[in-house]
C-alpha cells in the first residue's frame, strides 16, 4: 500500500517537474525579443555572450559585483546543493562511478560538518531576509517557504546519515526500481519517508516557483544578447 | 482648473497656465504674476511683451539666448545676462515668464 502510493506519487511529481520545466523552457524559448536590450558593456560576439552567461550561472558574477553578502550566502547554498545532489548520484546508478566514490569518501571524512555546510547558508539567508528591513519588506511567503523546505530536507537527510539510519540497500533498490520502471518496495524508515516526501513536494513545486530561475538565467535577454545592433539588423518577429 | 478675475472665469491647466491664449490681458498677467509672487515692473513687461510678439510669429517662446540678446539691446549689456533674467523671474524665465505672458508651458527636455 505504502509502496504503491509512493511509487505513484513519485512518478506524478517527476512528471510535473519535467513537463513543468519543459513547458517553461518552451515558452521562454519561443517568446520573441522584439528589440535589442542587451545590458552594456556587453560582448560583441557569440563566444563572449556564452562566457558571460556561464560566468553568471556558475560563479554568480553579476551578484558578486552587486552584493558580496548575498553572493556569499548564495554561493554557499548552491555549492552545498551541488555537493549534496552529486553525492546522491550513488543512489541512481549502479555501479557507482569512481568520481562519485571519491566525493563520497571525502564527505565521509568530514563527517557531520556536511550538515553544517548545507544548513548554515539556509539559516544565513533566512536571517538576512528577516533582518534587513528592505529585504523583509519585499519578501513573500514563498521565499520563506522554500528556505524552510530545503532546511527540512537537509535536516532529515542528516538525521538519516548519522542518527536514524535506513537500510541503504533498500533505499537504493527502491530508487533504482523507480528509474528503471520496475517498482520495488518502499523502505519503511520514517525519516526516509519524510525526506522522500519533502523531495517530491520540492519537485512538484519547482516549475511553479521562483526556483525556475535556474532555467531562466539562460534566457535573460539583457545578458544573452550580443551587442551588435549596428552591425546586424535585429528583426522584430511580430513586426516584420 | 480655472480662476476668477473681474467676474470672468479663466480656464488654466494644472500648473496654472492659461488654456486659451486669447484670454490673456494685462489684468490677467498681473493676476498670474501675483500667483508666482512676481511684482511686474517695466522690465518684466518688456520681457512679457517680447515673448508674446515672438510667440505670435513662431508659435513657441524664444530660446533664452534670444531673450537675453533682446534684453541686451533694450537695457544695455550689464543687464543682458542670465542672472538678471533669473532676478526678474526666479523660477526660471522659460516657464515663469511664459506663464505670465499667457503662453503654454514649454515641454520636452527643458
Amino acid at each position, binding site marked *: 500500500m505504502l509502496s504503491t502510493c509512493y511509487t505513484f506519487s513519485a512518478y506524478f511529481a517527476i512528471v510535473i517537474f519535467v513537463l513543468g520545466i519543459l513547458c517553461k523552457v518552451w515558452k521562454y524559448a519561443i517568446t520573441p525579443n522584439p528589440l535589442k536590450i542587451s545590458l552594456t558593456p556587453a560582448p560583441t560576439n557569440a563566444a563572449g555572450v556564452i562566457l558571460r552567461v556561464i560566468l553568471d550561472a556558475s560563479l*554568480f558574477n553579476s551578484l558578486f559585483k552587486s552584493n558580496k553578502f548575498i553572493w556569499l550566502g548564495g554561493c554557499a547554498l548552491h555549492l552545498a546543493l551541488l555537493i549534496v545532489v552529486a553525492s546522491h548520484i550513488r543512489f541512481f546508478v549502479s555501479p557507482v562511478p569512481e568520481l562519485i566514490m571519491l566525493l563520497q569518501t571525502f564527505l565521509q571524512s568530514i563527517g557531520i560538518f556536511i550538515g553544517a555546510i548545507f544548513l548554515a547558508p539556509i539559516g544565513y539567508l533566512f536571517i538576512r531576509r528577516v533582518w534587513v528591513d528592505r529585504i523583509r519588506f519585499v519578501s513573500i511567503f514563498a521565499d520563506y517557504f522554500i528556505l524552510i523546505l530545503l532546511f527540512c530536507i537537509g535536516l532529515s537527510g542528516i538525521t538519516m546519515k548519522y542518527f536514524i539510519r535506513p537500510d541503504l540497500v533498500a533505499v537504493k533498490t527502491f530508487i533504482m526500481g523507480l528509474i528503471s520502471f520496475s517498482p520495488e518496495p518502499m523502505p519503511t524508515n520514517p525519516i526516509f519517508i519524510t525526506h522522500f516526501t519533502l523531495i517530491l513536494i520540492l519537485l512538484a513545486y519547482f516549475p*511553479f516557483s521562483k526556483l525556475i530561475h535556474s532555467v531562466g538565467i539562460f534566457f535573460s535577454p539583457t545578458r544573452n544578447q550580443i551587442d551588435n545592433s549596428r552591425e546586424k539588423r535585429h528583426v522584430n518577429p511580430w513586426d516584420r | 482648473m480655472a480662476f476668477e478675475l473681474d467676474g470672468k472665469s479663466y480656464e488654466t491647466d494644472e500648473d496654472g497656465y492659461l488654456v486659451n491664449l486669447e484670454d490673456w490681458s494685462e489684468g490677467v498677467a498681473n493676476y498670474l504674476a501675483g500667483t508666482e509672487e512676481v511684482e511686474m515692473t517695466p522690465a518684466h513687461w518688456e520681457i512679457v511683451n517680447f515673448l508674446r510678439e515672438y510667440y505670435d510669429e513662431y508659435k513657441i517662446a524664444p530660446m533664452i539666448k534670444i531673450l537675453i*540678446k533682446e534684453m541686451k539691446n533694450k537695457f544695455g549689456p550689464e543687464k543682458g545676462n542670465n542672472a538678471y533674467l533669473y532676478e526678474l523671474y526666479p523660477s526660471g524665465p522659460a516657464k515663469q515668464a511664459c506663464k505670465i505672458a499667457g503662453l503654454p508651458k514649454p515641454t520636452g527636455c527643458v
Partner: protein
Amino acid sequence: MAKEKIEVPKLTGKIEIPRIKPGAALVCEHHKAKEQMLTELGYPSALVENWQEKAIAKMRELLNKYKSLKLYLDVCVRCGACTDKCQFFLGTADPKNTPVGRQELLRKIYRRYFTPAGKLLGGLAGAEDFTEEMLKEWYAYFHQCSQCRRCSLACPYGIDTAEISMAAREIMHSIGLGTKYTDEIILKVFNVGNNLGMQPKAIKSSLDFCVDEMKEAYEEKGITNIDVKIPMDVEGADILLVVPSADFFASPHIESLLGYAKVFHQAGISWTLSSYASEAGNFGMFTGSYDGMKKVASRIGQAVRDLKVKRLVIGECGHAYRIAYNFWNTLTGPFDTLDPKYPVPQHICEFTYDMIKRGAIRLDKSANDEFVVTYHDSCNVARATRMGDMPGGQFEIPRAIIKACCNKFVDMPQETIRENTFCCGGGAGLLTDEMLEIRIKGAMPRMQALKQVVDSHGVNFYVLICAICKAQFTKIFPMYGFPMDMVGGVHQLVSRAIIL
C-alpha cells in the same frame, strides 16, 4: 499658487542606504493625460468601465510579445541585491521604489491571473487582485522609474525593471490612463515633429540666431573670416545630424549645438539638420508603446531617404542614443542607402573623437583652463549602448574628448560612474514640474558623489551628453547649492576649445 517648500537632502558626500519608509514616495503624482490627448493617441479617453478585464487582456498580449517581461516576472528570487541600487529608493526610502518592490506591483497581478499557484493560493503565493488601490500604486510607482537599468546590472539574472515599468505603462494606457507630460510630447512629435513643438520656422530662427552669435563672438576676437553654418534640410549632404530638440531651444543644450557645428565645419564635411526629423528623443519608450516608438522613429528613416544623406549622426541625448543605437535599425531600418563604412547611426562623440584622432580638428586645452571638469555617464548611454568598437567605448570616448579639451579632469567615485552610474533623476517622463520632489530626491546619490569631488578637487564644471540630464541638473543644482551654469555638454567644451 503658493509653493510648499520641498526639503532638499543634506549633502555629506556619502550615499547611505536609508531605513525604509513605506509610502514616502507618494508625495507627488504626474498630471493625468487629457481625454483629447489619449483619444488622439488611439487610447480610451478615460479609465474604461471594465478596466480590470482589459488590463489583464493587455498583459496577456504583452506576455506573449516580450520575452523579457515573461521571464522577469517568473525568475526573481527576491534576493535583495537590487534593493539598494535605485536612486529613487536611496532618495525617498520608499521600499516600493526599490527595483524589486516596484516589480512586485506587477508580479502580484501576474501571479493572481496567470500562475496556477496564484490562482489557487492567492495571497499565500504572493498574488493580489487588481484593485483600484493597486492601480493607484501602479500609476505612482511605475512613473517613478527612470528606466536607467542600474537594477538590471545588479541582478543575478539581469532583470530589467525598465522592461517591467514599460509594460505597466502600456497596460495603463490601454485602459485609458496616461501621464500628461509624456503624452503631450509624443503628440507634439506626431503633429509638429519634435518634443518642443517647434515649427520649422522657429527652428530656423534659432539656428540663424546661433550662426550670428558665433560670427559675432569671433568678430569680437578680431577673427572675421570664420563663418560656421548650421544647415537645415540640405538635400544630398553627407551627414544628417539628429539632435534632441532641446538643443534648438534650451540652455546649456544649445552650447553643444554650436560645438557640433564647429566640429563639422572644421572637419570640412557637408552636413545638415532636418526640420522633419527634428527630434532625436523618443518618448514612445517612456510609455512603453512599441507602435508609438516606431511612429516617432519613422521620421528618421524618412528624413534619411528624403535628404539622400550618406551618414547618420546623433547629438547629445541619452535615451535617444539608446533608441538610435539599438532600435532604429529594427524600427525604421534597414538603412541600405547609408554608407556602410560608418556606424549606423554614429554618436556625435564618436565622430568628434575620430576627427581628433585623425588630427582633422585641433583643440586648445587652455581655453577651458578655468574649469575643473567631471563627467556624468548618462544612464542610457552607459548601460544600453556602445561607442566605438570596444565594449565600454561609451565610457572612454567622451572622457577622451573631454581630456583633449581641458587640462583638469577628475572622475567621481568609481561606484557612481561608468556602468554603475546613477540616473540624473529626471529620465523616462519624470522631467516635469509636478514631479519636482521626486526629481530632487532621485538626484541625491549623484549630488553626493559630485559633492565629494567638488570638495576634494574643486570641480566646477559638470559635463554630460544627455538633454534630459542637462535640463534636470540645471534645475536641481541650485537647490543643492551648486551653480546652475556648472552644467554643460561635452561639445560645449569642444566648442570653446576648438581651433578654427
